């Protein structure tokens, strides 16, 4: 009941927030950019062009998700709204799940609109995305949104104000998206050679951007680009239960981040 009310309010406020429209404009331009990149490719499956598109989405969407959503949570604290809500008989988990669901709907609407624009533009220009490509990009983006929303809830729970949330959001984005490969190479050079492969497989679980990328590229048939170190990941993704395992992993990540966020929020 309370989850539903909070989620509805979040959707209403989200669609009246000028920031949402700025990001919608940015994402629409971005998806048109993807259309231009895609128009250079004539091959099916995983290609250099697909990799470029996935990487570009990875740069933009996690940051956008973490900033929009963590700001929404810290605003509740800064404006005294949470303090008032806490005098209503509502649990912290209902509040955070409601915020999560509302934010997810707003962000999914923004990316769907963006891809819709590029789909229509492509049709008009005669250089359209294949429907399967558009669907693939949409699902890839939704996975990133849902996973990074969990992290955004954690940031919002830990930070007192928007400045703290901005700093933490950009730091996490830098760590997960930009610095991850370089950091891994540097850190793994300190461990015995035989540990590298299992460690690499384990740490991938802790970076949602990375495991979504590995899953997506593998499903497109490009798993070989990751090399033998990721063999086990590619093996289970390609197995009959690959999709189920991936969904389970995503749900586990979202549940874990929401659970920790709830605990952190209550301690504050």
């Amino acid at each position, binding site marked *: 009941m309370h989850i539903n009310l909070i989620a509805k309010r979040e959707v209403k*406020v989200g669609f009246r*927030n000028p920031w949402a429209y700025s990001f919608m404009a940015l994402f629409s331009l971005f998806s048109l950019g993807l259309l231009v990149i895609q128009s250079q490719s004539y091959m099916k499956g995983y290609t250099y062009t697909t990799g470029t598109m996935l990487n570009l989405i990875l740069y933009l969407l996690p940051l956008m998700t973490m900033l929009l959503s963590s700001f929404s949570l810290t605003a509740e604290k800064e404006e005294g709204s949470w303090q008032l809500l806490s*005098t*209503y008989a509502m649990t912290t988990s209902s509040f955070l799940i409601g915020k999560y669901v509302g934010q997810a709907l707003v962000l999914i609407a923004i990316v769907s609109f963006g891809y819709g624009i590029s789909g229509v533009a492509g049709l008009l220009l005669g250089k359209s995305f294949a429907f399967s490509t558009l669907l693939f990009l949409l699902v890839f983006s939704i996975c990133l949104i849902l996973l990074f929303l969990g992290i955004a809830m954690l940031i919002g729970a830990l930070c007192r104000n928007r400045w703290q949330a901005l700093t933490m959001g950009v730091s996490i984005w830098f760590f997960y998206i930009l610095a991850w490969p370089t950091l891994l190479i540097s850190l793994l050079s300190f461990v015995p050679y035989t540990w590298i492969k299992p460690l690499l497989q384990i740490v991938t679980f802790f970076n949602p951007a990375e495991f979504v990328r590995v899953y997506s590229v593998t499903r497109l048939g490009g798993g070989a680009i990751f090399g033998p170190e990721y063999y086990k990941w590619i093996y289970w993704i390609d197995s009959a239960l690959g999709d189920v395992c991936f969904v389970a992993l995503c749900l586990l990540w979202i549940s874990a981040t929401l659970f920790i966020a709830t605990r952190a929020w209550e301690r504050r």
Partner: protein
Amino acid sequence: MQTFGLTVDQVSKTINDKTIVHPFSLRIEPGEVVALCGGNGAGKSTILRMLVGILRPTTGTIQLNGMSWEEQRVDYLQQIGYMPDHFSFTAGLTARETLEFYAALRNRTAEDADRMLKAVGLHDARNKRVSHFSKGMQQRLLFAQAILAKPALVVLDEPTNGLDPYWMDAFVDLVRELRLAGQSVIFSTHQLQVADAVADRAIFLMNGQIVRDDTIDQYQEQYGNVGLYGAFAELVSRAHA
């Protein structure tokens, strides 16, 4: 046997080894209106925040109609309406949407919210964004939010801040209606004339301690027409002596 009304027993609050509120006990009967008076930093807001469960008391217990926040949190909170001092409404929502949201959280209908908007004189502005409201209009909306579910205890932190004289009078009338309906009210204020006009009792606080707790009639008997102002002046001069 269930005790009706609010019972506060030896409650105190210490933060970082500093005592913000010294141990105090208090009883508010159903239909009683109590004003908390005192200067800045006297501990008024801390007491109110403990009553509504935002802050946990360091010592003591608080019970409302026989229920405590610790043991029956949901039932306890359902009997409370709270109006905070520092608050900004969520930008982007209209007055009607805002009040309907809070009404729904208390299982009240849109009609209840509409009725309350009329009571606080915001019905004509119901479709305006709250972010465009003046401070006084926001205070009235916040007050409506606190009383719309007819709670047993209404807790108001500086409710008359930003209200013009007309709405100050209207506030007094609305609190009198709450009293008639058997609802208890406790509010903090710097405006002693408001306390004088509407409260049955006034409690003076200084440095986190209750220094005087008497009925308005007792203050008037002692200080005549100046009433609470006389008591306040005496307490201040005693503190500076």
